[in-house]
């Protein structure tokens, strides 16, 4: 029994020293293939802070993880339409991003955005678009319309890959059908549901992580994709073309926020400030391949990035940023998706 007490005391001591060491750490939870290792190394070298990165595949997964309670993450990267949800649910905290020294580097266009009007919570990561990509060697179409994705032709039978969560798929469907985002009208949502059920007959997999693998193996000829991730697949050697359909694409802005109860808030602020430096942001944009909201990064871009079609959309491309949906609209979206998934 005495022995047991010693053990307990020893473990308690270990725990407290563990906490003391935590001051030099930062736990990041970010999307898959979205955190360049070189950037992490550079930050670690400059600050001595040890970073651990975990990944998720959708805003929904991130929200569920944060809702489930203490996660131990210090920094997460939601899209613009999920930031107000995280604020309202009390899941992220005010960290006065506008007071950080490098905030001055932000492009005016993206300062004080509508999802965080005081810029209390969020620092910029990347912004980009959601559309679809196709294998230009196998697929005969040109990706000119969202019709090719939502009403696939026979050649796509069993060769189409779609994201696993509804957020962006439904937004894209709204654009195609000319319906408003976050519709609370059951009849409109029924139209989307019917279309997605029909589309399912051609779907090989619902997937938000291994699109590039599916495309390079030829398992899929067309997939839901993000512009930068699609570029990654292409630069790795697969004949993938990112489509700019005439109806338009979904736009998103991902930003760094700090969950409530994070252990290393100051380290997270340091990291956000570090990322808002044009040199570092250019490194991120170079690897992730989307767009950034920081002045002066272009000077550091490689020629390859500057000439990539994925980051140089046609000038007449319509980009729609989805707002945060009301609970009623959200529950309709969830109903539609559950129906499609079963």
């Amino acid at each position, binding site marked *: 029994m005495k022995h047991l007490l010693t053990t307990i005391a020893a473990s308690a001591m270990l725990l407290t020293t563990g906490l003391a060491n935590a001051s030099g750490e930062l736990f990041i939870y970010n999307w898959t293939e979205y955190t360049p290792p070189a950037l992490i190394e550079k930050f670690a070298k400059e600050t001595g802070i040890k970073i651990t990165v975990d990944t998720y595949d959708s805003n929904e997964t991130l929200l*569920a993880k944060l809702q489930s309670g203490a996660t131990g993450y210090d920094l997460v990267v939601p899209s613009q339409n999920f930031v107000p949800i995280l604020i309202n649910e009390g899941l992220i905290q005010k960290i006065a991003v506008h007071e950080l020294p490098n905030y001055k580097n932000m492009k005016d266009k993206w300062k004080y955005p509508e999802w965080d009007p005081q810029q209390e919570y969020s620092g910029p990561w990347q912004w980009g678009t959601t559309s679809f990509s196709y294998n230009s060697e196998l697929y005969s179409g040109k990706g000119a319309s969202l019709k090719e994705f939502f009403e696939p032709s026979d050649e796509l039978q069993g060769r189409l890959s779609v994201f696993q969560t509804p957020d962006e798929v439904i937004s894209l469907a709204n654009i195609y059908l000319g319906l408003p985002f976050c519709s609370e009208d059951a009849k409109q949502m029924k139209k989307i549901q019917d279309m997605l059920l029909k589309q399912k007959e051609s779907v090989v997999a619902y997937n938000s992580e291994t699109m590039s693998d599916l495309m390079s193996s030829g398992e899929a000829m067309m997939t839901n994709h993000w512009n930068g991730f699609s570029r990654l697949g292409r630069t790795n050697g697969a004949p993938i073309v990112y489509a700019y359909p005439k109806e338009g694409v979904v736009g998103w802005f991902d930003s760094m926020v700090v969950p409530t109860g994070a252990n290393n808030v100051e380290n997270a602020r340091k990291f956000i400030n570090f990322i808002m430096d044009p040199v570092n942001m250019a490194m991120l944009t170079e690897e992730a391949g989307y767009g950034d909201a920081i002045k002066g990064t272009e000077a550091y871009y490689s020629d390859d990035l500057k000439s990539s079609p994925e980051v140089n959309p046609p000038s007449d491309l319509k980009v729609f940023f989805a707002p945060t949906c009301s*609970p009623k609209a959200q529950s*309709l979206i969830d109903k539609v998706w559950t129906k499609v998934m079963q």
Partner: protein
Amino acid sequence: MTLWMPKTAAGKRWLGLAPSYIVIGIFMLIPMVIMGVFSFLEPNPYGGVMPEGSVAAYVKLFFEYDLEDNLVFNPGYINIIYRSFQLSIGATLLCLAFGFPVAYYITLQPEHKRNFYIFLITIPFWTNLLIRTFAWIIILGRGGVIEMPLLAAGIIEDSLRMMYTDGAIAIGLTYSYLPLMVLPIYASLEKLDFRLLEAATDLYANRLEVMTRVVIPLCKPGIIAGCILVFIPCLGAFIAPNLLGGGKKLMLGSLVQFQFASARNWPFGAALSMLLLAVVVVVLIFYARAAKKQAAIAGEG
């Protein structure tokens, strides 16, 4: 320092068992109670639950409000449950078909070799299940390990389309849980008195009869234990259906995961887990009864 020590034997037994009660309490009962409570609450549209009692989650198993808010019978989830059973039973039978001969073969080896073979059986557990399941994508996929030589030899012209099918899920499940079938069967075969086999042969039993009337009945507890160990995790699996089935044919496990992660209906996810739990309990009761009967027969003999 004097410590309180129970005086009676029963008290000492309680104290001795206390660690296991604590472990079971913390790691099993408390999470189960939380799930049980959640299943009777209202979902919060942005994840989590709201503190309002409701049986909606259980109604949802069989009925749904369609987009126009009419309550209609919905066979969707029953289909998923049916599919889960089908695939789990299929995977269990496949495991048995492969696992029994392996276990039998190992039993027939000299002792030092046996331990080595058992060691080999456990090797897959050293690697993460997710990674092992990913490997099957490479094996079964288009132009993968199986298709490549067939394509090269001109035996097939187009892809066999093995990935993202029910068959791929069944293969993945079989692979994942095969060791759980081999080990209990081996454990019961190891105790088998092989003189009984000779005796059966002396009494003019042919090889098939020796197998069906002597070996299998004697190692039945191992077979049943193996089947349960495989069947139950199959029902709750979500890695194989997601990765190998392409997430378009949900099983119970992936449906539960989907409710918590994407659909944000925690009470429904919890209700599904409760249903899964009920199924497991029923299966275990059948097992306990069968085992009791077996023991009674053995006692008579």
